[in-house]
């Protein structure tokens, strides 16, 4: 059982770093902004919900910074030693970080997605609040939270902020770029089904959902698998390595 004090400690640390609030605001602003631009430019026949929520592809980059900073920042300043003296059960500390980052991203993500959907509702007559659109919205918030957890796990492994962010963004951007050149439809679908960004964002599709290589919740499940694997790797490294 994670101690309330460990959670409180993480919350205090993240709350008192001046960057946090700006990163959260940045997530919201960039998500809504790109969503608004994409909504404006939507081609006829496009998926309105997916257009309105395009900004998530940009907003996630800020979530990555936020999550990575919670770990790498401590390693950079040596704060990690203090943290581990205060909470010697290392996995408790990681769990507390996971909970705090999820909570923060869920709040910021909800605001960002709500903003994007409101912009979409104003700009796109095709967009109505149907079941699939609600699923896409809730799914996008969860997507951002899972990206946060994935980044957190990888940051524990990599430790350096720049390297960790490079790894996470490279991992996310790999498949969308590579699949443009994959002409075998089986491989194309396989790659899109298995990689974190394309699988996770399948939750946003509301038109022709059956044609997607992966179902909406299944896709989010794939991303959750990635996040879990990253957290496990992080936990293992944290246990085994000197801080």
């Amino acid at each position, binding site marked *: 059982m994670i101690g309330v004090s460990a959670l409180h400690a993480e919350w205090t640390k993240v709350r008192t770093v001046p960057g946090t609030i700006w990163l959260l605001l940045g997530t919201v602003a960039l998500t809504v902004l790109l969503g608004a*631009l*994409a909504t404006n*430019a*939507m*081609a*006829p*026949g*496009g*998926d309105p919900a*997916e*257009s309105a929520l*395009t900004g998530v*592809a*940009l907003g996630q*980059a*800020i979530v*990555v*910074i936020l999550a*990575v*900073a919670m770990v*790498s*920042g401590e390693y*950079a300043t040596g704060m990690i030693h203090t943290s581990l003296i205060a909470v010697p059960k290392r996995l408790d500390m990681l769990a507390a970080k996971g909970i705090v980052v999820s909570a923060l991203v869920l709040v910021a993500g909800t605001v960002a997605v709500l903003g994007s959907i409101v912009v979409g509702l104003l700009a796109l007559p095709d967009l109505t609040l149907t079941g699939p659109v609600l699923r896409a919205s809730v799914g996008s918030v969860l997507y951002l939270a899972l990206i946060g957890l994935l980044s957190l796990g990888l940051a524990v492994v990599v430790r*350096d*902020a*720049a*390297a*960790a*962010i*490079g790894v996470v*963004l*490279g991992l996310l*951007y*790999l498949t*969308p*770029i*590579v*699949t*443009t*050149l*994959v*002409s*075998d*439809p*089986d*491989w*194309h679908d396989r*790659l899109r089904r298995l990689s974190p960004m394309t699988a996770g964002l399948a939750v946003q*599709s509301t038109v022709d959902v059956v044609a997607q290589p992966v179902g909406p919740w299944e896709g989010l499940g794939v991303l959750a698998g990635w996040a879990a694997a990253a957290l496990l790797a992080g936990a293992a490294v944290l246990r085994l390595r000197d801080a």
Partner: protein
Amino acid sequence: MRSLIHAEWTKFRTVRGWIVGMLLAIPLTVLIGLLGPATSNFSCAGPNGESCAGRNPPTGPGDIPVIDAFTFVHRTLTGDGSITARVAALPDNAEPWAKAGVILKQGTEPGSSYAAVLLTGHHGVRMQHNYTEDVAGPSSNQDSQWLRLSRKGDSLTGEVSLDGERWVTISTVQLGLGERVQAGMFVSSPQHVEINRSFGGVDATGGLTLATTTFDEVRTDGDWSADWQGADVGGSPDDATGFTESGGEFTITGTGDIVPITPSLGSLGKTVESTLIGVFAGLIAVLVVATMFVTSEFRRGLVRTSLAANPRRGQLLAAKAVVIGSVSFVVGVVAAAITIPVVENLEVAKGFFLFPTSTLTELRVIGGTGLLFAVSAVLAVAVGTLLRRGGGTVTVVIVGIVLPYLLAIASMLPPGPADWLTTVTPAAAFALQQTAVEYPQVASDYVTADGFFPLSPAGGFAVLCVYAAVAVGFAFAALRRRDA
């Protein structure tokens, strides 16, 4: 300044992680480049069940892959001579680039050299030769026009007339076709393609089209063989093509086109830039190292030592930029120089065909990849100096350079915003890799996703340079004003 560069070089080369990170850019670029063709198999099958793989299109002069299919009503012309015909305008609903006119061609073999004067569906009268060359003639709305193509030695002249008496020369070209050529009248009509791009998907629908028009008052001068013969150059997929003649009036129905093939996503033709799809990953590695190269100075307080050793702060920034820029340039050049032949090998083995590129263009692509890496790394150093934080810096440069590229190239955005992104963001510099050629006389949609960047290679690179220069300017000012 020299000792300063030496100092920065020493800092760089003595951190093992940075060397590893930089070198990692090379295998990343190669392996991700291989991923594309490695995961490509041909599921399509031809009429006899054979795979499409290796079924290469005909190649025209200069080995460029071409489409060369049309209905040809021809006789053999030996030596100098000319052909004149009155050609009725193509119907209004014809494809914009449907063609009807007179042509002199080396033979009926697809891909052979030719010159033609022709009427098009919506693009007026033109003289074209050897697939890539095109000259527009005077425009007119008349129901029919006289076209004439004559050759004298290797000199071919195309003329057009509204009344058969007053002639306007469209162009004269030098083209050696040999003593005996096939000459006559032709009609072609390209595939009708409608491409619907939406988020995350491209949907192309289309089908073959036919065009029919009439030729009369046909006159030949010179040494021509006796009878008009019909030929479906390139093999016609439709039974309706062919010609009829009655009283000197020819009615010709054709399909196909006479054009260079332009690269498009998922086609069997591969361009040099398609082998370099992994460059973005190599670039991320370079950006991470470039960022750490500067932000670690601030993190560890080394910057105070550096500035104590050389108090002229601008020089420190310059030395860092020189060192990281040079290293990144070399890494980019090596990565591209290895990737291109390795991936092309696999592409050919998989049955793709390659668009030919001149050595000069290939060198530009390889050098361009080096420049892309170098200037991006300098941008990262400048942003790192401004922000002093590794995480923020890496995110800013990756999101600034790689994300717009991703959004444009992966068809995640429709062509309008995709063009805009690859114009105003540093991702414009990926144009340095473009080898795909845009032909004004070939109907294709030339979008970024197919490798056609809105800016020229130099223009796109200039955009990145402007970003880097502005960032360096701000970094210089900040470094001078701020306490270290």
